[in-house]
C-alpha cells in the first residue's frame, strides 16, 4: 500500500503528513523516536483504514514552532489539525509519547474521535512502579531497552545512522526533553481528568516493556471508564514495531 507525504500548514506551523490506504480514518501519533519512515504496521493498517501519520511539531521534517513548550500545546495543535482537515469519526491511535498525546487530546475534545487506542502510553505516574530513564541510557541501551527480542535490537544497532538520521535523532531528542523531562514522562494533571474520556478506549501494552512496565496498563484501565486492555506477549515498548501483525489484529478486533 503506497503512502504519500505532504506538508500541512496548520495556522503557520508546517508538519509532514504521510497518508495511505482508504476506509475509516485512523490517525497515528508517533512516540519519542518520531515517524520518519513508512513502517510495516502502517502498510498493514492501510489495507483497512485511511491511515494518517503526521510528524509532531518539533520532530523529523516538521517545524519547531515558538509556541511549543509542553504536551498540552501539542494536544491543542492536533485539535486545530483535526478541524482544519475536517476529520470526523477518527480512530486515534498513539504510541508511547503519542499515546500520552492522544489522551491529552481526548480529555480536551473528543468530538471528532470515534475511538482511541493508546499503546504503552506515557502520561501518568504510578508510585512504586520502577520506570526506565531513557535520558540516562546510552544510545545502545536506548535501542536494546525498546525490544523484547534482542535480535531486532542487534539488527538496528548493526546499521550505523546516516548524517541525516543523526540530525533527526538529535532534533527529536531535544523535543522529547522539552515535552517530557520534567515531570519525567508524565503530566501530574492528566490522571485527574482521564474519566472524561467517553469514547471506547483500548490500552495495548508489551508484557516486557522496559520503559514503562505493563503494570501501568491496569492503572490506565482503572482511570478510564470501560477501557479494554490488551497485553502483547514477549514484546517490548513498541508492539506496533515489534509485533506489527498482532498489533494490527488487536486494532481491528477493537473496531469490530
Amino acid at each position, binding site marked *: 500500500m503506497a503512502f504519500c507525504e505532504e506538508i500541512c500548514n496548520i495556522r503557520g506551523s508546517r508538519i509532514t503528513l504521510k497518508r495511505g490506504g482508504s476506509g475509516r480514518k485512523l490517525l497515528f501519533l508517533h512516540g519519542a523516536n518520531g515517524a520518519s519512515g513508512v513502517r510495516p504496521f502502517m502498510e498493514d493498517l492501510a489495507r483497512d483504514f485511511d491511515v494518517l501519520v503526521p510528524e509532531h511539531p518539533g520532530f523529523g521534517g516538521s517545524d519547531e514552532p515558538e509556541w511549543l513548550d509542553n504536551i498540552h500545546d501539542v494536544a491543542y495543535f492536533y485539535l486545530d489539525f483535526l478541524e482544519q482537515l475536517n476529520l470526523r469519526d477518527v480512530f486515534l491511535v498513539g504510541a508511547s509519547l503519542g499515546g500520552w498525546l492522544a489522551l491529552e487530546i481526548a480529555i480536551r475534545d473528543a468530538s471528532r474521535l470515534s475511538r482511541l487506542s493508546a499503546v504503552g502510553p506515557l502520561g501518568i505516574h504510578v508510585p512504586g512502579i520502577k520506570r526506565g530513564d531513557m535520558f540516562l541510557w546510552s544510545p545502545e541501551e536506548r535501542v536494546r531497552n525498546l525490544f523484547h527480542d534482542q535480535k531486532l535490537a542487534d539488527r538496528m544497532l548493526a546499521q550505523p545512522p546516516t548524517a541525516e538520521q543523526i540530525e533527526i535523532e*538529535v532534533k527529536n531528542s*531535544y523535543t522529547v526533553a*522539552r515535552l517530557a*523531562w520534567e515531570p519525567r514522562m508524565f503530566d501530574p494533571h492528566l490522571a485527574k481528568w482521564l474519566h472524561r474520556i467517553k469514547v471506547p478506549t483500548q490500552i495495548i501494552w508489551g508484557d516486557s516493556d522496559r520503559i514503562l512496565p505493563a503494570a501501568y496498563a491496569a492503572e490506565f484501565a482503572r482511570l478510564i471508564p470501560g477501557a479494554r486492555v490488551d497485553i502483547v506477549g514477549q514484546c517490548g515498548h513498541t508492539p506496533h514495531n515489534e509485533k506489527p501483525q498482532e498489533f494490527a489484529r488487536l486494532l481491528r478486533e477493537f473496531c469490530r
Partner: protein
Amino acid sequence: MNILLFHLMPYADLDLREADKYPHSWVTLPNRFYDPKKGHALYNRYLDEMEYAEDLGFDAVCVNEHHQTAYGLMPSPIVTASALSRRIKRAKIAILGSALPLRANPLTVAEEHAMIDNITGGRLISGFVRGIGCEYHASGVNPTYSLARFNEAHDLIVRAWTEPGPFEFHGKHYHFEYVNVWPRPYQQPHPPIWIPSQGSRETIEFAAHPARKYTYLQTFSPIKAVAKNLLMYRDVAKRHGYTSAPSQLGWATPVYVGETDEAALAECSEHYENFRNRFLGKMSLEMLMPPGYTSRESARAIVAAKTAAHEKVDTRRADELGMMTCGSPRTVADRLIDYMTQIGFGNLLAMLQFGTLPADLTRRNMERFAEYVMPRLRQAAKELYGS
C-alpha cells in the same frame, strides 16, 4: 594580576574501589558512600585551607556549586562563602558560580549574594553559571530551557541589584509582582560578575558584550582550548570596538609545586588522576550533555564522533597538554608565565587541592606556590600589563 585559590572541596575519603563498581561518580552514585563524620573533618579542613590562602597572600578564594557528587561537596556555595565571610578579612570571596537556571526563584541568588557582599563590605565576586549537564539530572530542571532560564535569571538579578524597587517582572520563566531586594548590594552598581565556562561561543559572546564586559574564566581545559577561547573573547571585544583588559580573562587550573619536577610528579600523580579520571571523568555523555543543554550542532558532532565525555588521561600527559601544571617552583612559574605571556589572562585561579590530595601535601603545595610562584607571576604581570 589576581591570583586566586580555587577549591572544589571533593569528598576525598570516597571508597574508590567500591565507587569504581558504579558507572557514574555523579547523580546515581549512592550517597551511602558519604560518611558524615569524615565529611565533617573534610569540610573543616578545606575551610581551613581557604582561610590559610588569605595568610599566604592570595587575592581571593573561589567556591562553586555542584550537586549529588563526590567531585565537590558544595551543593550550596552560599554556605561555604558565608562560612568564610567572617573569617577572611582582606581577600575577596568569589562564588564561581551560582547555577542560575537551577533556582526556582533566582531572586534568592540576588538576596544571598547581596548579603555576603554586605557582610564582607564589598569583597564578593559574583559568578553566574548554567551548571554542567549532570546538574539537570540532579535538579530535574529541563535542560532545553537552561540557556533561556540563565539569560532571564541574569537579567532579573542585575535589574534587582540596580533598579529601584519595587518593580514587577514578567519573563517567560519567572514572574514577580514585587521585585524589591533587601539588602541592596554593598558594591555599586553591583558586585563584579564573572562567567566560568568550559567554553562556548554563546557564553563568550555574552560575557564579552560591551554592556557587560564580564570576566570570563576558562575552567580545567587543555591550554590550547584556553588560548582559543580567551582569544575568541578578545576578538569579540574588538568586533564591538573595544580592547578587553587582562582582568576580563581568567583561567582555572590544577597546579602542583614540588621540590623538584620528579618529586612533584610523584607526589601529585595519583591524586590528580583521581580528580580527573574518577571524580570528574566518570560520567557518560548522556549525563554530561542532556538533550537541549548544548547547541544542536555540538550535539550532532558528539553523536557522530562517538566521543566519550572525558577521555582518561594520566598526569604526565595532562601536564604536557597544559590541563594542569606540575613541577619544581621554577618549572611551574616559568610555565605559567609563558602561558600568561602568550594568552594575556589577568586572573589565575590555581586549584591547589584536587582529588584525593591530602592535607599535608595540599599545604606544602600552597606554601611553595605562594612563596615562589606567586611573586614571579606578579612581577611578570607588572612587566606585561603594568599592574
